[in-house]
């Protein structure tokens, strides 16, 4: 079985970014290669000038969810970008921006945080995913 875990990160809210970073970091800690493909709002969250900013939460969070997430952050839960940085240091985590989303958002790679390794198209993404699992968030 191909152990590579591929995550398509489409969503740009902090809760979903945190969920994706958790899945990526867990797989990396187990020694599995991880590929993250950034599309649309997921990609937009990796702008160099805004990666640690407030990206909001999914609509279903509501008042209760916002308070719970704020409390977790205050209690010292790691920021998703920090979790991804640690995962990259410890394992094989490759983060690629979707070239079509780059075009739509009028982004150049120099506009992105250096945590992003490169830009690729969907065919390259599938080839790199091989027979491994693909997770869409």
């Amino acid at each position, binding site marked *: 079985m191909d152990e590579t875990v591929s995550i398509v990160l489409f969503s740009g809210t902090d809760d979903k970014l945190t969920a994706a970073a958790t899945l990526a*970091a*867990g797989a*990396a*800690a*187990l020694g599995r290669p991880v590929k993250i493909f950034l599309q649309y709002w997921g990609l937009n969250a990796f702008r160099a000038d805004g990666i640690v900013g407030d990206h909001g939460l999914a609509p279903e969070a509501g008042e209760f969810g916002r308070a719970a997430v704020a409390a977790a952050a205050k209690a*010292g839960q*790691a920021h998703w970008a920090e979790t991804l940085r*640690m995962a990259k*240091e410890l*394992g094989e985590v490759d983060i690629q921006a979707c070239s079509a989303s780059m075009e739509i958002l009028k982004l150049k790679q120099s506009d992105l945080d250096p945590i992003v390794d490169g830009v690729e198209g969907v065919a390259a993404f599938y080839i790199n995913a091989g027979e491994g699992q693909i997770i869409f968030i």
Partner: protein
Amino acid sequence: MATQDIKLKVDASGLSCPLPILKATQGIKTLQSGELMEVVATDPGSVKDFAAWASSTGNALVEQDSANGKFRFVVRRK
């Protein structure tokens, strides 16, 4: 197990998933094969996580216990 056999102690108290296993991964890389690392965590999920992490990475979970909401794991590097 004599405490002096433990080469590295990692305190992952107060950290939520996936940080305890990330800290463990970070720590184990600094050890030589056969050396022991102790990790203390408060995340209740760490019990199943450390079992999974050990079996997947091949490092041996040689001891574990819990007391007062703390979970302690001793891992021997592969």
